[in-house]
Protein backbone atom coordinates (compact mmCIF):
# COMPACT_ATOMS: atom_id res chain seq x y z
CA UNK A 1 0.00 0.00 0.00
CA UNK A 2 2.98 2.29 0.05
CA UNK A 3 3.31 2.42 -3.71
CA UNK A 4 0.74 3.78 -6.14
CA UNK A 5 0.74 1.75 -9.33
CA UNK A 6 -1.42 4.48 -10.86
CA UNK A 7 -0.53 4.85 -14.53
CA UNK A 8 -0.22 8.05 -16.60
CA UNK A 9 -3.27 9.85 -17.85
CA UNK A 10 -5.84 8.93 -15.22
CA UNK A 11 -5.17 11.45 -12.44
CA UNK A 12 -6.14 15.12 -12.89
CA UNK A 13 -3.06 17.26 -13.78
CA UNK A 14 -3.39 19.43 -10.68
CA UNK A 15 -2.80 16.39 -8.43
CA UNK A 16 0.26 14.97 -10.20
CA UNK A 17 1.78 18.42 -10.86
CA UNK A 18 1.42 19.17 -7.14
CA UNK A 19 3.05 15.80 -6.43
CA UNK A 20 5.98 16.56 -8.73
CA UNK A 21 6.48 20.01 -7.18
CA UNK A 22 6.35 18.69 -3.61
CA UNK A 23 8.69 15.79 -4.44
CA UNK A 24 11.06 18.28 -6.11
CA UNK A 25 11.07 20.42 -2.98
CA UNK A 26 11.69 17.35 -0.83
CA UNK A 27 14.61 16.40 -3.09
CA UNK A 28 16.11 19.88 -2.72
CA UNK A 29 15.68 19.60 1.06
CA UNK A 30 17.25 16.14 1.10
CA UNK A 31 20.19 17.35 -1.01
CA UNK A 32 20.72 20.27 1.38
CA UNK A 33 20.37 18.08 4.48
CA UNK A 34 22.81 15.46 3.21
CA UNK A 35 25.41 17.83 1.76
CA UNK A 36 27.98 17.00 4.44
CA UNK A 37 27.71 13.21 4.27
CA UNK A 38 30.41 11.44 2.26
CA UNK A 39 30.25 9.14 -0.76
CA UNK A 40 30.08 6.16 1.60
CA UNK A 41 26.52 7.10 2.55
CA UNK A 42 25.60 7.35 -1.15
CA UNK A 43 27.05 3.89 -1.70
CA UNK A 44 25.16 2.50 1.32
CA UNK A 45 21.86 4.14 0.36
CA UNK A 46 22.26 2.80 -3.18
CA UNK A 47 22.83 -0.71 -1.82
CA UNK A 48 19.65 -0.41 0.25
CA UNK A 49 17.79 0.97 -2.79
CA UNK A 50 18.99 -2.07 -4.73
CA UNK A 51 17.73 -4.34 -1.94
CA UNK A 52 14.36 -2.53 -2.00
CA UNK A 53 14.03 -3.12 -5.74
CA UNK A 54 15.24 -6.71 -5.47
CA UNK A 55 12.86 -7.45 -2.60
CA UNK A 56 9.91 -5.93 -4.44
CA UNK A 57 10.39 -8.76 -6.95
CA UNK A 58 9.86 -11.41 -4.27
CA UNK A 59 6.29 -12.57 -3.75
CA UNK A 60 5.57 -13.98 -0.27
CA UNK A 61 2.89 -16.67 -0.60
CA UNK A 62 -0.04 -16.04 1.74
CA UNK A 63 -2.75 -18.61 1.18
CA UNK A 64 -3.96 -18.04 -2.39
CA UNK A 65 -2.31 -14.62 -2.80
CA UNK A 66 1.26 -13.41 -3.12
CA UNK A 67 2.33 -10.22 -1.37
CA UNK A 68 5.15 -8.04 -2.69
CA UNK A 69 7.14 -6.29 0.01
CA UNK A 70 8.41 -2.70 -0.19
CA UNK A 71 10.82 -2.60 2.79
CA UNK A 72 10.23 1.17 2.98
CA UNK A 73 9.93 1.10 6.80
CA UNK A 74 13.07 -0.94 7.54
CA UNK A 75 15.12 1.01 4.96
CA UNK A 76 13.84 4.22 6.57
CA UNK A 77 15.10 3.02 9.97
CA UNK A 78 18.52 2.05 8.59
CA UNK A 79 19.05 5.37 6.75
CA UNK A 80 18.81 8.99 7.85
CA UNK A 81 15.56 10.68 6.65
CA UNK A 82 17.10 12.67 3.76
CA UNK A 83 18.88 9.62 2.35
CA UNK A 84 15.73 7.53 2.83
CA UNK A 85 13.72 9.99 0.74
CA UNK A 86 16.36 9.95 -1.99
CA UNK A 87 16.25 6.15 -2.08
CA UNK A 88 12.44 6.25 -2.37
CA UNK A 89 12.66 8.67 -5.30
CA UNK A 90 15.29 6.63 -7.15
CA UNK A 91 13.35 3.37 -6.66
CA UNK A 92 10.14 5.02 -7.85
CA UNK A 93 11.84 6.44 -10.94
CA UNK A 94 13.30 3.06 -11.84
CA UNK A 95 9.93 1.37 -11.40
CA UNK A 96 8.35 4.00 -13.69
CA UNK A 97 10.99 3.24 -16.34
CA UNK A 98 9.93 -0.42 -16.11
CA UNK A 99 6.27 0.51 -16.63
CA UNK A 100 5.32 0.06 -12.93
CA UNK A 101 3.49 3.31 -12.22
CA UNK A 102 3.45 6.27 -14.58
CA UNK A 103 6.04 8.99 -15.14
CA UNK A 104 3.60 11.72 -14.16
CA UNK A 105 2.97 10.04 -10.79
CA UNK A 106 6.66 9.65 -9.92
CA UNK A 107 6.28 12.64 -7.56
CA UNK A 108 3.23 11.21 -5.79
CA UNK A 109 4.81 7.75 -5.57
CA UNK A 110 8.03 9.19 -4.17
CA UNK A 111 6.03 11.13 -1.58
CA UNK A 112 4.01 8.08 -0.50
CA UNK A 113 6.98 5.70 -0.37
CA UNK A 114 9.19 8.49 1.02
CA UNK A 115 6.80 9.33 3.85
CA UNK A 116 6.89 5.71 4.94
CA UNK A 117 10.70 5.73 4.87
CA UNK A 118 11.23 9.20 6.42
CA UNK A 119 8.83 8.63 9.33
CA UNK A 120 10.26 5.26 10.35
CA UNK A 121 13.56 6.35 11.93
CA UNK A 122 12.16 8.90 14.43
CA UNK A 123 9.51 6.37 15.45
CA UNK A 124 12.18 3.71 15.96
CA UNK A 125 14.34 6.07 17.99
CA UNK A 126 11.43 7.06 20.22
CA UNK A 127 10.73 3.46 21.21
CA UNK A 128 13.98 1.50 20.99
CA UNK A 129 15.13 2.33 24.53
CA UNK A 130 11.96 0.81 26.01
CA UNK A 131 11.14 -2.04 23.65
CA UNK A 132 14.43 -3.07 22.07
CA UNK A 133 15.35 -3.15 18.36
CA UNK A 134 13.02 -5.81 16.93
CA UNK A 135 9.69 -4.64 18.40
CA UNK A 136 10.66 -1.00 17.71
CA UNK A 137 11.44 -1.79 14.07
CA UNK A 138 8.09 -3.60 13.76
CA UNK A 139 6.27 -0.66 15.38
CA UNK A 140 8.06 1.96 13.23
CA UNK A 141 7.35 -0.05 10.08
CA UNK A 142 3.67 -0.54 10.93
CA UNK A 143 2.99 3.10 11.85
CA UNK A 144 4.90 4.49 8.86
CA UNK A 145 3.08 2.09 6.52
CA UNK A 146 -0.26 3.22 7.92
CA UNK A 147 0.74 6.88 7.47
CA UNK A 148 1.77 6.16 3.86
CA UNK A 149 -1.51 4.36 3.23
CA UNK A 150 -3.41 7.35 4.63
CA UNK A 151 -1.51 9.66 2.26
CA UNK A 152 -2.27 7.23 -0.59
CA UNK A 153 -5.99 7.46 0.26
CA UNK A 154 -5.80 11.28 0.43
CA UNK A 155 -4.31 11.39 -3.10
CA UNK A 156 -7.02 9.10 -4.43
CA UNK A 157 -9.83 11.13 -2.83
CA UNK A 158 -8.24 14.36 -4.12
CA UNK A 159 -8.00 12.85 -7.60
CA UNK A 160 -11.67 11.96 -7.69
CA UNK A 161 -12.76 15.29 -6.18
CA UNK A 162 -10.64 17.35 -8.60
CA UNK A 163 -11.52 15.46 -11.77
CA UNK A 164 -13.53 17.82 -14.00
CA UNK A 165 -17.07 16.56 -14.43
CA UNK A 166 -16.95 14.36 -11.36
CA UNK A 167 -16.32 17.06 -8.78
CA UNK A 168 -19.83 18.43 -9.04
CA UNK A 169 -21.65 15.14 -9.34
CA UNK A 170 -23.14 14.15 -6.02
CA UNK A 171 -24.39 10.91 -7.54
CA UNK A 172 -20.84 9.74 -8.26
CA UNK A 173 -19.72 10.74 -4.78
CA UNK A 174 -22.69 8.93 -3.26
CA UNK A 175 -21.95 5.76 -5.28
CA UNK A 176 -18.29 5.84 -4.30
CA UNK A 177 -19.16 6.30 -0.64
CA UNK A 178 -21.58 3.37 -0.86
CA UNK A 179 -18.95 1.16 -2.55
CA UNK A 180 -16.41 2.17 0.11
CA UNK A 181 -18.79 1.39 2.99
CA UNK A 182 -19.42 -2.10 1.66
CA UNK A 183 -16.43 -3.38 -0.35
CA UNK A 184 -13.96 -0.98 1.24
CA UNK A 185 -14.55 -2.05 4.81
CA UNK A 186 -14.91 -5.72 3.91
CA UNK A 187 -11.96 -6.05 1.52
CA UNK A 188 -9.60 -3.06 1.52
CA UNK A 189 -9.20 -2.60 5.28
CA UNK A 190 -8.39 -6.27 6.05
CA UNK A 191 -5.97 -6.36 3.10
CA UNK A 192 -4.29 -3.18 4.28
CA UNK A 193 -3.96 -4.52 7.83
CA UNK A 194 -2.54 -7.78 6.49
CA UNK A 195 0.00 -5.90 4.37
CA UNK A 196 1.03 -3.75 7.36
CA UNK A 197 1.34 -6.86 9.55
CA UNK A 198 3.57 -8.58 6.97
CA UNK A 199 5.87 -5.59 6.60
CA UNK A 200 6.04 -5.20 10.40
CA UNK A 201 6.93 -8.88 10.85
CA UNK A 202 9.61 -8.58 8.17
CA UNK A 203 11.00 -5.56 9.98
CA UNK A 204 10.90 -7.53 13.23
CA UNK A 205 12.91 -10.41 11.74
CA UNK A 206 15.37 -8.06 10.07
CA UNK A 207 16.03 -6.04 13.24
CA UNK A 208 16.33 -9.21 15.37
CA UNK A 209 18.99 -10.52 12.99
CA UNK A 210 20.89 -7.23 12.73
CA UNK A 211 20.80 -6.69 16.51
CA UNK A 212 22.39 -10.12 16.93
CA UNK A 213 24.94 -10.00 14.09
CA UNK A 214 25.73 -6.34 13.26
CA UNK A 215 24.10 -4.04 15.85
CA UNK A 216 26.14 -1.06 14.60
CA UNK A 217 23.91 -0.87 11.50
CA UNK A 218 20.87 -0.05 13.64
CA UNK A 219 20.52 3.56 14.83
CA UNK A 220 20.85 3.99 18.57
CA UNK A 221 19.12 6.51 20.83
CA UNK A 222 22.26 8.57 21.27
CA UNK A 223 22.91 9.05 17.54
CA UNK A 224 21.10 12.36 17.44
CA UNK A 225 18.37 13.11 14.89
CA UNK A 226 20.55 14.22 11.99
CA UNK A 227 18.58 14.53 8.74
CA UNK A 228 21.58 13.57 6.64
Amino acid at each position, binding site marked *: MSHLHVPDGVLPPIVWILGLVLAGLMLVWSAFASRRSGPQVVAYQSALGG*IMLAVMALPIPITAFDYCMTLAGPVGVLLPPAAAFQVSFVVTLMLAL*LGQGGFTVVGLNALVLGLSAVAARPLYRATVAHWGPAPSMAFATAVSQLAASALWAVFLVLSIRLTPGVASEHEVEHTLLMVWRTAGVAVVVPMLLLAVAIEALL*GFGLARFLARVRPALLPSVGDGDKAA
Partner: protein
Amino acid sequence: MINAFTQIDHLASAGTSPWHRASAIAKLLLVLLHLVLALVVPSWVALAALFLTALVLCVTARVPRRLMLAAATTPLLFSIIFVAAHYHGDVVEAARLLMRPMVVSLSAVWLVSTTPYPDLFAPLSRLLPQRVGDSLFLTYRAVFVLLERVERLWKALRLRGAMARPVRERVAVVGEALGTVVISGFDRSVRLYQVMHLRGHSGRICGCRHYLDLTRSDRWVLVAALWSTALCAVLWRAGGA
Protein backbone atom coordinates in the same frame (compact mmCIF):
# COMPACT_ATOMS: atom_id res chain seq x y z
CA MET B 1 10.39 -8.53 -12.19
CA ILE B 2 13.76 -10.27 -11.80
CA ASN B 3 13.49 -11.58 -15.35
CA ALA B 4 12.21 -8.25 -16.64
CA PHE B 5 15.25 -6.43 -15.24
CA THR B 6 17.80 -8.81 -16.71
CA GLN B 7 15.98 -9.18 -20.03
CA ILE B 8 15.69 -5.42 -20.49
CA ASP B 9 19.30 -4.80 -19.53
CA HIS B 10 20.56 -7.50 -21.92
CA LEU B 11 18.37 -6.26 -24.76
CA ALA B 12 19.43 -2.63 -24.21
CA SER B 13 23.13 -3.46 -24.42
CA ALA B 14 23.12 -6.30 -26.97
CA GLY B 15 20.30 -5.19 -29.34
CA THR B 16 21.22 -4.38 -32.93
CA SER B 17 18.12 -2.61 -34.29
CA PRO B 18 18.34 0.98 -35.61
CA TRP B 19 16.61 2.09 -32.39
CA HIS B 20 19.55 0.72 -30.40
CA ARG B 21 21.95 2.78 -32.50
CA ALA B 22 19.96 5.99 -32.09
CA SER B 23 21.06 8.51 -29.46
CA ALA B 24 19.54 8.38 -25.99
CA ILE B 25 18.52 12.04 -26.04
CA ALA B 26 16.48 11.58 -29.23
CA LYS B 27 14.70 8.55 -27.78
CA LEU B 28 14.03 10.32 -24.48
CA LEU B 29 12.48 13.24 -26.39
CA LEU B 30 10.32 10.86 -28.43
CA VAL B 31 8.99 9.21 -25.25
CA LEU B 32 8.37 12.65 -23.75
CA LEU B 33 6.42 13.55 -26.90
CA HIS B 34 4.34 10.37 -26.58
CA LEU B 35 3.68 11.19 -22.94
CA VAL B 36 2.49 14.73 -23.76
CA LEU B 37 0.40 13.53 -26.71
CA ALA B 38 -1.18 10.76 -24.60
CA LEU B 39 -2.12 13.32 -21.95
CA VAL B 40 -3.54 16.04 -24.22
CA VAL B 41 -5.07 14.25 -27.21
CA PRO B 42 -8.85 14.09 -26.71
CA SER B 43 -9.59 11.44 -29.36
CA TRP B 44 -9.53 7.75 -28.43
CA VAL B 45 -8.95 6.93 -32.12
CA ALA B 46 -5.77 9.04 -32.12
CA LEU B 47 -4.73 7.35 -28.87
CA ALA B 48 -5.33 3.92 -30.42
CA ALA B 49 -3.19 4.93 -33.43
CA LEU B 50 -0.49 6.16 -31.04
CA PHE B 51 -0.68 2.84 -29.19
CA LEU B 52 -0.16 0.99 -32.49
CA THR B 53 2.83 3.23 -33.21
CA ALA B 54 4.36 2.38 -29.82
CA LEU B 55 3.67 -1.29 -30.53
CA VAL B 56 5.48 -1.06 -33.90
CA LEU B 57 8.42 0.65 -32.15
CA CYS B 58 8.63 -2.27 -29.69
CA VAL B 59 8.25 -4.97 -32.36
CA THR B 60 10.95 -3.43 -34.56
CA ALA B 61 13.24 -3.14 -31.52
CA ARG B 62 12.64 -6.89 -30.97
CA VAL B 63 11.25 -6.40 -27.46
CA PRO B 64 10.10 -9.86 -26.23
CA ARG B 65 6.35 -10.39 -26.49
CA ARG B 66 6.02 -11.10 -22.77
CA LEU B 67 7.57 -7.74 -21.88
CA MET B 68 5.29 -5.91 -24.33
CA LEU B 69 2.26 -7.70 -22.94
CA ALA B 70 3.26 -6.87 -19.37
CA ALA B 71 3.87 -3.22 -20.26
CA ALA B 72 0.52 -2.91 -22.01
CA THR B 73 -1.55 -4.71 -19.39
CA THR B 74 0.07 -3.67 -16.07
CA PRO B 75 -1.54 -0.21 -16.09
CA LEU B 76 -4.89 -1.65 -17.18
CA LEU B 77 -5.97 -2.88 -13.73
CA PHE B 78 -5.64 0.58 -12.20
CA SER B 79 -7.15 2.27 -15.23
CA ILE B 80 -10.16 -0.01 -14.89
CA ILE B 81 -10.58 1.05 -11.24
CA PHE B 82 -10.51 4.70 -12.29
CA VAL B 83 -12.87 4.04 -15.18
CA ALA B 84 -15.27 2.31 -12.78
CA ALA B 85 -15.08 5.25 -10.37
CA HIS B 86 -15.66 7.87 -13.06
CA TYR B 87 -18.00 5.97 -15.35
CA HIS B 88 -21.33 7.61 -16.01
CA GLY B 89 -22.22 6.38 -19.47
CA ASP B 90 -19.41 8.09 -21.40
CA VAL B 91 -17.75 5.28 -23.36
CA VAL B 92 -15.34 7.67 -25.12
CA GLU B 93 -13.96 8.93 -21.79
CA ALA B 94 -13.56 5.33 -20.60
CA ALA B 95 -11.68 4.42 -23.80
CA ARG B 96 -9.40 7.44 -23.34
CA LEU B 97 -8.61 6.48 -19.73
CA LEU B 98 -7.73 2.95 -20.85
CA MET B 99 -5.61 3.92 -23.87
CA ARG B 100 -3.47 6.71 -22.35
CA PRO B 101 -1.45 4.63 -19.85
CA MET B 102 -0.88 1.83 -22.36
CA VAL B 103 0.69 4.27 -24.84
CA VAL B 104 3.09 5.67 -22.24
CA SER B 105 3.92 2.30 -20.70
CA LEU B 106 4.79 0.70 -24.06
CA SER B 107 6.86 3.72 -25.06
CA ALA B 108 8.75 3.50 -21.74
CA VAL B 109 9.53 -0.18 -22.28
CA TRP B 110 10.75 0.61 -25.81
CA LEU B 111 13.04 3.29 -24.36
CA VAL B 112 14.60 1.14 -21.64
CA SER B 113 14.92 -1.85 -24.00
CA THR B 114 16.89 0.13 -26.56
CA THR B 115 19.05 2.35 -24.33
CA PRO B 116 21.88 1.12 -22.06
CA TYR B 117 21.50 2.48 -18.55
CA PRO B 118 24.54 4.80 -18.46
CA ASP B 119 23.13 6.62 -21.53
CA LEU B 120 19.64 6.66 -20.09
CA PHE B 121 20.60 7.92 -16.63
CA ALA B 122 23.23 10.46 -17.74
CA PRO B 123 20.72 13.12 -18.93
CA LEU B 124 18.35 12.37 -16.01
CA SER B 125 21.16 12.72 -13.46
CA ARG B 126 21.96 16.18 -14.81
CA LEU B 127 18.46 17.31 -13.89
CA LEU B 128 18.60 15.87 -10.37
CA PRO B 129 20.56 16.92 -7.26
CA GLN B 130 24.08 15.46 -7.34
CA ARG B 131 23.55 12.79 -4.68
CA VAL B 132 20.29 11.59 -6.23
CA GLY B 133 21.93 11.39 -9.65
CA ASP B 134 24.83 9.37 -8.21
CA SER B 135 22.40 7.15 -6.36
CA LEU B 136 20.56 6.41 -9.63
CA PHE B 137 23.71 4.90 -11.17
CA LEU B 138 24.85 3.07 -8.05
CA THR B 139 21.40 1.64 -7.25
CA TYR B 140 21.05 0.21 -10.75
CA ARG B 141 24.53 -1.26 -10.49
CA ALA B 142 23.68 -2.80 -7.11
CA VAL B 143 20.38 -4.29 -8.25
CA PHE B 144 21.86 -7.08 -10.35
CA VAL B 145 24.26 -8.38 -7.70
CA LEU B 146 21.54 -8.18 -5.06
CA LEU B 147 18.88 -9.73 -7.31
CA GLU B 148 21.10 -12.75 -7.76
CA ARG B 149 21.71 -12.95 -4.03
CA VAL B 150 18.03 -12.52 -3.16
CA GLU B 151 17.08 -15.18 -5.70
CA ARG B 152 19.58 -17.66 -4.20
CA LEU B 153 18.37 -16.81 -0.72
CA TRP B 154 14.76 -17.36 -1.77
CA LYS B 155 15.60 -20.77 -3.25
CA ALA B 156 17.46 -21.76 -0.07
CA LEU B 157 14.52 -20.71 2.11
CA ARG B 158 12.11 -22.77 0.03
CA LEU B 159 14.36 -25.82 -0.07
CA ARG B 160 14.87 -25.72 3.69
CA GLY B 161 11.14 -25.63 4.30
CA ALA B 162 10.84 -22.04 5.54
CA MET B 163 7.73 -21.55 3.42
CA ALA B 164 6.03 -24.54 5.04
CA ARG B 165 5.93 -22.84 8.44
CA PRO B 166 2.93 -20.89 9.78
CA VAL B 167 2.55 -17.42 8.13
CA ARG B 168 3.73 -15.45 11.18
CA GLU B 169 6.96 -17.46 11.46
CA ARG B 170 7.40 -17.53 7.68
CA VAL B 171 7.48 -13.74 7.39
CA ALA B 172 9.82 -13.28 10.36
CA VAL B 173 12.21 -15.88 8.88
CA VAL B 174 12.20 -14.00 5.55
CA GLY B 175 12.98 -10.83 7.52
CA GLU B 176 15.96 -12.53 9.22
CA ALA B 177 17.16 -13.83 5.87
CA LEU B 178 16.94 -10.30 4.46
CA GLY B 179 19.31 -9.26 7.22
CA THR B 180 22.07 -11.22 5.48
CA VAL B 181 21.36 -9.30 2.26
CA VAL B 182 21.46 -5.96 4.13
CA ILE B 183 24.82 -6.85 5.67
CA SER B 184 26.19 -7.95 2.31
CA GLY B 185 24.84 -4.71 0.76
CA PHE B 186 26.56 -2.69 3.48
CA ASP B 187 29.86 -4.52 2.99
CA ARG B 188 29.61 -4.01 -0.77
CA SER B 189 28.97 -0.30 -0.26
CA VAL B 190 32.11 0.00 1.92
CA ARG B 191 34.19 -1.75 -0.79
CA LEU B 192 32.61 0.35 -3.51
CA TYR B 193 33.41 3.52 -1.60
CA GLN B 194 37.03 2.44 -1.23
CA VAL B 195 37.25 1.69 -4.96
CA MET B 196 35.71 5.07 -5.80
CA HIS B 197 38.16 6.74 -3.44
CA LEU B 198 41.16 4.93 -4.96
CA ARG B 199 40.09 5.83 -8.48
CA GLY B 200 39.96 9.51 -7.55
CA HIS B 201 36.19 10.00 -7.30
CA SER B 202 35.66 13.73 -7.76
CA GLY B 203 32.39 13.88 -5.87
CA ARG B 204 30.09 13.32 -8.84
CA ILE B 205 29.27 10.43 -11.15
CA CYS B 206 28.50 12.23 -14.39
CA GLY B 207 27.86 9.28 -16.67
CA CYS B 208 29.12 9.30 -20.22
CA ARG B 209 28.19 11.92 -22.79
CA HIS B 210 27.24 9.34 -25.45
CA TYR B 211 23.62 10.26 -24.94
CA LEU B 212 24.27 13.49 -26.86
CA ASP B 213 26.02 11.82 -29.82
CA LEU B 214 23.56 12.07 -32.69
CA THR B 215 23.74 9.20 -35.17
CA ARG B 216 22.24 8.38 -38.59
CA SER B 217 19.67 6.20 -36.87
CA ASP B 218 18.25 9.31 -35.20
CA ARG B 219 16.51 9.94 -38.52
CA TRP B 220 14.21 7.02 -37.68
CA VAL B 221 13.43 8.54 -34.30
CA LEU B 222 12.64 11.84 -36.05
CA VAL B 223 10.38 10.01 -38.52
CA ALA B 224 8.58 8.32 -35.60
CA ALA B 225 8.14 11.68 -33.85
CA LEU B 226 6.77 13.36 -36.99
CA TRP B 227 4.49 10.37 -37.64
CA SER B 228 3.08 10.44 -34.08
CA THR B 229 2.52 14.21 -34.20
CA ALA B 230 0.89 14.10 -37.64
CA LEU B 231 -1.29 11.17 -36.60
CA CYS B 232 -2.58 13.00 -33.55
CA ALA B 233 -3.14 16.23 -35.51
CA VAL B 234 -5.17 14.44 -38.21
CA LEU B 235 -7.17 12.29 -35.78
CA TRP B 236 -7.53 14.99 -33.09
CA ARG B 237 -11.31 15.13 -33.42
CA ALA B 238 -11.96 11.58 -34.61
CA GLY B 239 -14.11 9.13 -32.63
CA GLY B 240 -16.33 11.61 -30.82
CA ALA B 241 -13.63 13.59 -29.00
